[in-house]
């Protein structure tokens, strides 16, 4: 029995290592001075960091990524919170059906979603730009936001609202002074997750942005030409933004799968 337990733990460590090590390596190589990412590492340096800040496009791409991420988070947290509150008040069977339907875009390959949106925008004569990327991202961030807030709302105690209403609060006042403060951590957590998903997306952005660039499309351009080590530095920035916002999100929402 003891041996079996040890084998389980060793396997668990190997698998966790397999999951986390590639991400760790990207960060590690961002701080070395060699042009090729390989071992052994002799010197640590900030060479690539200085280089990316001198890069012509880097700051505008960072700016675009942040604009898109924040807009997506704001819009999807509004539509998502409203939908989650609405869904929590209807029978759970129809609520899960609606949730399943709204989640279809997550199941589709991003390529199909990207070209579908591209052809649609072009055919209705919509100019491509940051705004088309923002509305496209809503499609796959919204389901996550709704799901997370919904799982909080089904355990929400509506009697506190009733008491406030009995004491003379208007429905709107009860909503802003009671519901919002109670669900605030979950809503902020869910919108941080939307930021992470949006900043990380490459494929849908690639098809719907037209001429501009975000951090992932900039990285893709660099990867296509050659293996430039600056990629590690920009990748570290993307990873920092996505992983820190999703870690805070998971902590705030107490979401455990």
């Amino acid at each position, binding site marked *: 029995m003891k041996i079996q*337990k040890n084998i*389980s*733990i060793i396997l*668990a460590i190997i*698998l*966790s290592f*397999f*999951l*986390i090590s*590639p*991400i760790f*390596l*990207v960060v590690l*190589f961002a701080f070395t001075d060699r042009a090729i*990412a*390989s*071992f052994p590492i002799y010197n640590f340096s900030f060479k690539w960091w200085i280089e990316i800040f001198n890069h012509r496009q880097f700051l505008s791409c960072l700016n675009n990524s942040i604009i898109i991420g924040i807009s997506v988070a704001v819009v999807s947290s*509004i*539509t*998502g919170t*409203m*939908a989650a509150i*609405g*869904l929590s008040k*209807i029978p759970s069977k129809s609520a899960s059906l*609606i949730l399943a*339907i709204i989640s*279809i*875009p997550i*199941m*589709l*390959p991003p*390529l*199909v979603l990207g*070209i*579908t*949106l591209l*052809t*649609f925008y072009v055919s209705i004569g919509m100019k491509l730009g940051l705004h088309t990327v923002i*509305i496209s991202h*809503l*499609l796959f961030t*919204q389901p996550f936001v709704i799901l997370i807030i919904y799982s909080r709302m089904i355990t929400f105690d509506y009697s506190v609202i009733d008491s406030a209403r009995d004491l003379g609060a208007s429905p709107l006042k009860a909503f802003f002074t009671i519901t919002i403060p109670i669900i605030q951590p979950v809503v902020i957590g869910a919108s941080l*997750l939307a930021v*992470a998903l949006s900043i*990380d997306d490459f494929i849908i952005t690639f098809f719907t942005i037209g001429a501009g660039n975000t951090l*992932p499309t900039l*990285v*893709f351009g660099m990867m296509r030409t050659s*293996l430039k080590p600056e*990629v590690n530095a920009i*990748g570290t920035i*993307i*990873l920092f933004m*996505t*992983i820190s916002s*999703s870690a805070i999100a998971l902590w705030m929402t107490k*979401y*455990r*799968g």
Partner: protein
Amino acid sequence: MIKKNYLLITPAIAVFIFLFVFPFIYFFMISLWKIKFYKLIRDYNLVNYNKAISNYIEIFITTYSVSIPVAIITTIIGFYYSYLARFKTGRYGLVMIFIALITLFGGYLMKIYAWKTILGNEGVINSILIYFHIIKEPLTFLLYTKVGLIITFVHFLLPFAILPTYASLRGVNANEIDSMKDLGAKFYHVQFMLFFQRCRIGVLASFVFCLLIVSGDFLTPFLIGGKITFIGNMIAPKFGQFFDWPLGSAMSFTMLTVSILIIAIVSYLFKLTDPK
């Protein structure tokens, strides 16, 4: 009251309808049209589907010869990871799930890039093996081969396979497994029961997701696959440099249909394992 609740859902539904349902219907209609002198002609027929199948049959075969194994491998490893996290590792189990969640939400492009630097001729694996004199020449079967492609896909998709199976396993009590063992069940009996019966929904969800995502990917084969071409690599340029929306759309719908057929067969096979 009921009306008010549905009114709250309306904005989310509106986003779904205007940005998904309408575009998707339009995208399907394009697959029936044709293109002439860089203009779309509304002429309904199935020529594009015929072309999509007859011209690209080999690429479809390559695509599914990678995506089916990837979906199976990822689902099995994902299930086993959840099993370890749920029953075998105690408090460390929560750390395992946290690792899975963290790697879920970030770094699609960076994961591909990381594997490119890990698997390359002068990459991490080869440089370590050469440094310790385990090999003299770099292993060349790692990058730009099916092996590298499968490793990259499995790594990227594993968190997506872990979470649904873990959610299913949370409904299973450790006592159930103990009593199965007391009644003489072997390790593989327990695994079979958990995988095919108790976790059926989670396992199927993970298989479906992995298959759809891998068969529709074009970036991983482009950067890791070398000469291996997926159907997505043929579809993407139809919306860029080789302007041919109708054919690209027909290829997309052919791909989705094949994937859905495979999913239907697999779900049927899963039903056969049900003792009831």
